[in-house]
């Protein structure tokens, strides 16, 4: 655990994203976000819905271009070297669907090929993930027929097919039952054990307490505070993470009473 392969695997420096909305005017989705994530570390992006967590992740995964600021993933600039960044990341969200008319094995093969794997090495990697995630019994059926939990396992396998050094999880347990949520968290922990750098977006405090080594609190696009769980509790003088978080983001003090 906490094995250092490449320090500062993810680094942002005043990263901002401004959306121009004809109705609402300029929307500052993320403002001056600066944080780091090390190998073998899970960094939790904690914030309410619409706080800017997903926008931040989408900038780091090169889907969105920052309006200003800089960011590096695996020491590659996300704007100057987007292809290299994409090679080193895996992205998973519960809202991401699978191709319904393809089987899990075909989907893994497809994404493996897109990441440059082929032939025997691709087949071996697909077989390994099918076995590791226990999806062998439905690996050759169509994804349309799978349950939500089964789909999520396939999604995890898809994220890991190219063995990325950096993993982004965007609310990966949202909508899942308690058993599947535990499975997802176990896989996230396993990946940390393997020395991966993980950014984990959520608003579920129990998940943060279980998984995260470092927390970044985000509210209305701004980073309001960061540190370990204990540091945040100490900094706010609160005994629970939930209350500490609410205090950090400046939520109504009466609620905390």
């Amino acid at each position, binding site marked *: 655990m906490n094995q250092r392969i490449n320090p500062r695997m993810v680094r942002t420096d005043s990263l901002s994203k401004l959306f121009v909305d004809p109705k609402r005017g300029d929307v500052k989705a993320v403002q001056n976000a600066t944080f780091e994530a090390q190998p073998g570390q899970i960094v939790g992006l904690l914030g309410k819905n619409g706080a800017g967590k997903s926008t931040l992740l989408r900038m780091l995964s090169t889907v969105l271009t920052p309006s200003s600021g800089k960011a590096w993933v695996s020491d590659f600039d996300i704007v100057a070297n987007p292809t290299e960044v994409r090679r080193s990341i895996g992205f998973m969200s519960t809202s991401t669907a699978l*191709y319904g008319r393809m089987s899990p094995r075909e989907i893994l093969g497809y994404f493996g090929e897109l990441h440059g794997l082929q032939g025997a090495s691709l087949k071996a990697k697909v077989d390994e993930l099918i076995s590791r995630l226990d999806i062998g019994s439905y690996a050759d059926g169509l994804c349309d027929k799978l349950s939500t939990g089964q789909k999520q396992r396939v999604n995890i396998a898809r994220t890991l097919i190219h063995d990325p050094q950096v993993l982004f999880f965007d609310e990966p347990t949202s909508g899942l039952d308690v058993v599947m949520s535990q499975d997802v968290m176990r896989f996230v922990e396993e990946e940390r054990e393997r020395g991966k750098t993980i950014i984990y977006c959520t608003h579920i405090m129990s998940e943060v307490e279980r998984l995260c080594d470092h927390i970044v609190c985000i509210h209305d696009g701004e980073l309001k505070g960061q540190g370990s769980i204990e540091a945040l509790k100490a900094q706010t003088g609160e005994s629970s993470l939930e209350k500490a978080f609410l205090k950090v983001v400046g939520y109504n003090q009466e609620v905390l009473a």
Partner: protein
Amino acid sequence: MNPVVTVFRKEMREMLRDKRVRSAMFIGPIFSVALMFILFGLIFSSFSKATKTTVHAIVRKHDAATDAFIKGLEKGGMTVKELPSVDAATEQIKKGEVRLALDFGDGMETSLGSNQPFKLPAYFDPSEQKAQIALSVIEKSMSAMNEVIVGKIFEEKQIDKAMLKPLSVERKEVKVGDTNTNEFLVQLLPYLIVIWAFYGAMSSASDMVAGEKERQTLETLLISPVARRQVALGKLFALATASFLATASSIATIFVFYSLKLDFLKPLFEKGLGLNFTGVLVILVALVPTTMFFASALIAISSYARNTREAQTYLAQGSILVMLPAMFSQIIGFTDFAQSRTVYAIPILNAANVIRNALIGKYDAVGIAMTVGIGAVLALIAMAWSVRLFNRETILNRI
């Protein structure tokens, strides 16, 4: 493997597993062309049957000339049944029980014997096309009989029989193409082939980008280390293949129906099928840039749309732009435009015109080159447009 090929293979696999897409690529074109042959084959064969229909005659007094005329009609395949009166005839025409009734009155010889012309009243419902056809057969028969009668008079007066028709037109057909196809097929088939090139791709276009946005599978694709241009091109080539397969299905159906040699299709194929190997090759070559143009434009529209429903709305509107020139190709033969090279400068219409000419074995090299060239330029512009949209964050994240 080249990522374009990887994306192409994945899209083809998904499309071929989708019932709606299979229907648009194969079942739709095959069914529509088959239906066209069956319906119009039946209509054409019923035209020929109409000449052998039943007509009714009111004959108060039989004589040799009247009986000879009726026998002539029966020899030509008509069935002649007698009715007692004109009133009975009109009554039954109104009920739809009688198609055409001829009133021979007191017989032809009463008039002819006294050197008076005989007028044969024919009662019919003008909205009944079969009655009109039967009437034209009777008029032809009567005209032949007139020639015999007048011929006898000329002979008696020692006048050359050729002077029966002092003025006439002698038709000398000049064969322009190498082959022949029924005019009706020449009008309709180009429209069907071009329309299916569009509809074959349209069914999967909305799903390919807008659908992926909606299901959020596009994001996983964009996070892969593949250039967006390569993703767009893989999708575009898959869509062009769908379009091409739909076209090929419609052309294959034409050959299947021709080779079946069914009786009711004989009137449609009485001149044969002008489409030979060269013709098919020319059609396919002319359609390649057209299908690429369709696919690129459809991908661009699908990229712009937020979801499949929005994409389908835009695509339905876009289909009108394709249908108009394709529809014009049906009537182009009636205009001077068909002979002009300007037609080859108009996208879609030019492809339809190349198909039209191929059906009659006419190959205009300049026209074909213009069709391919203009189609290729348009395809490249549409491809650049769709790739550009694929690179725009505001478009791909427009959900």
